[in-house]
C-alpha cells in the first residue's frame, strides 16, 4: 500500500521526546505536579505489583537491569495514550497527564515492561518489522491485565466466552494503528498471522496472569525456576 505520509513511528504522541532533550525540572515541579504523582505511583508499582516485580526480575536475569531514573520517564503525552516503549533510547514513557490511578499505573508499567522484556531477550525490529511489533503488542495486551473482564466492562465491551482473545486482538490492532501509518486491513492481517504463536507465548509468566493471585503464583514459580529445571 502507498504510504503518502512520512512514517514518524508514533513519536507525535510523545511531544517531549521530539525535542530531543531530556530536561530536568525545578524542585517545585518535582513536588507539586503530575510529574511527582507519576513518580510516586511508579515507585509503588515497582515495589508492590507482582506483575512488575516478576518482569523486573526476569529482565535483570536477562542482563537488562532496570534503573527507575534511567529507564522510566514521566512525561506529558498527546491524546489518551497511557504510555510507550522507546526502543531508540531504551526508555519506558509514562503519560503523567493520563494516568491518575494506581491500578492504571500498575497495568501500564506491566504492559510497557513486557515490550522492554521482549526488546531485551529477542532481536525485535521495532521500526521495520510489523510482525515483531504485532507480536509484542499481542503479548502485552494478553499478559498485562489490559483485557481483564472488569477492564473490558468498564469500556462497555461486554463479552464472555473467549472474549479475552477478541480483546487482545483488537487492542493489538489499535496499538499498531496508533504508532504506524498503515491501514486497518493491513494491521488486522498482520495480527491474525502472528496471533497464535504470540498469544501462546507467556514468557516470563508461564501462564496468563488474570489476577494478582495468578501473578503471585507466577512470581513464586519464577523465583524457584532453578530448582524446577534442575529436577525435571
Amino acid at each position: 500500500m502507498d504510504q503518502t505520509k512520512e512514517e514518524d513511528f508514533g513519536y507525535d504522541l510523545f511531544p517531549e521526546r521530539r525535542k530531543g532533550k531530556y530536561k530536568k525540572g525545578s524542585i517545585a515541579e518535582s513536588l507539586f505536579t503530575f510529574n511527582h504523582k507519576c513518580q510516586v505511583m511508579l515507585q509503588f508499582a515497582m515495589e508492590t505489583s507482582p506483575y512488575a516485580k516478576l518482569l523486573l526480575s526476569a529482565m535483570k536475569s536477562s542482563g537488562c537491569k532496570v534503573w527507575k531514573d534511567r529507564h522510566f520517564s514521566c512525561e506529558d503525552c498527546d491524546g489518551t495514550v497511557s504510555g510507550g516503549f522507546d526502543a531508540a533510547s531504551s526508555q519506558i514513557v509514562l503519560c503523567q497527564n493520563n494516568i491518575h490511578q494506581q491500578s492504571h499505573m500498575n497495568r501500564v508499567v506491566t504492559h510497557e515492561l513486557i515490550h522492554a522484556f521482549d526488546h531485551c531477550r529477542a532481536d525485535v525490529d521495532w521500526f521495520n518489522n510489523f510482525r515483531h511489533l504485532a507480536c509484542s503488542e499481542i503479548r502485552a495486551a494478553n499478559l498485562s491485565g489490559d483485557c481483564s473482564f472488569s477492564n473490558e466492562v468498564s469500556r462497555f465491551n461486554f463479552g464472555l466466552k473467549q472474549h479475552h482473545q477478541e480483546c487482545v486482538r483488537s487492542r493489538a490492532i489499535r496499538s499498531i494503528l496508533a504508532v504506524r501509518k498503515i491501514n486497518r486491513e493491513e494491521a488486522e492481517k498482520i495480527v491474525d498471522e502472528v496471533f497464535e504463536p504470540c498469544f501462546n507465548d507467556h514468557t516470563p509468566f508461564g501462564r496468563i496472569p488474570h489476577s494478582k493471585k495468578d501473578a503471585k503464583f507466577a512470581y513464586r514459580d519464577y523465583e524457584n525456576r532453578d530448582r524446577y529445571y534442575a529436577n525435571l
Partner: protein
Amino acid sequence: MDQSNKTTWRPPRVCDNYWSEFKHCKSLSNRFHHYYTYGTTPSCQQWKEDYYNCREWEKHKGTEAKEELQKSERNRVAEQSKFTPVWKLRQDPPRDWHLPLNQDKPQDS
C-alpha cells in the same frame, strides 16, 4: 540422564505448591477466567495427582512416583513451548540498554 546423583533429586516444586495450584485451579474465579479466555472449563486433576505423587515420593522415595511427577512437569513445559517464535532470541542483551541518555539526541528514529 546420569543417575549417579539419585539422592539429590527432589520434586521440581515444593509439595504444598501443587496443592495450592490445585485449589486455585478449581476456584470459581479461575474457572471464570479460563472460560473467559478459552471458552472451556479448566482441567485440574493433574495438579492433585502431582501433589499425591510428591507426597508419596517424600514418604517412600519410590521411582514410580518420581517418574510420574517428572512426566507431568515435562508435559507442562512442552505445552508452554508448542509454538514457533516470531523472532530470534538474543545471545546477549542490547548493547545500548545501559548507555547513559544523550542530552542532545539528534531527531531521528
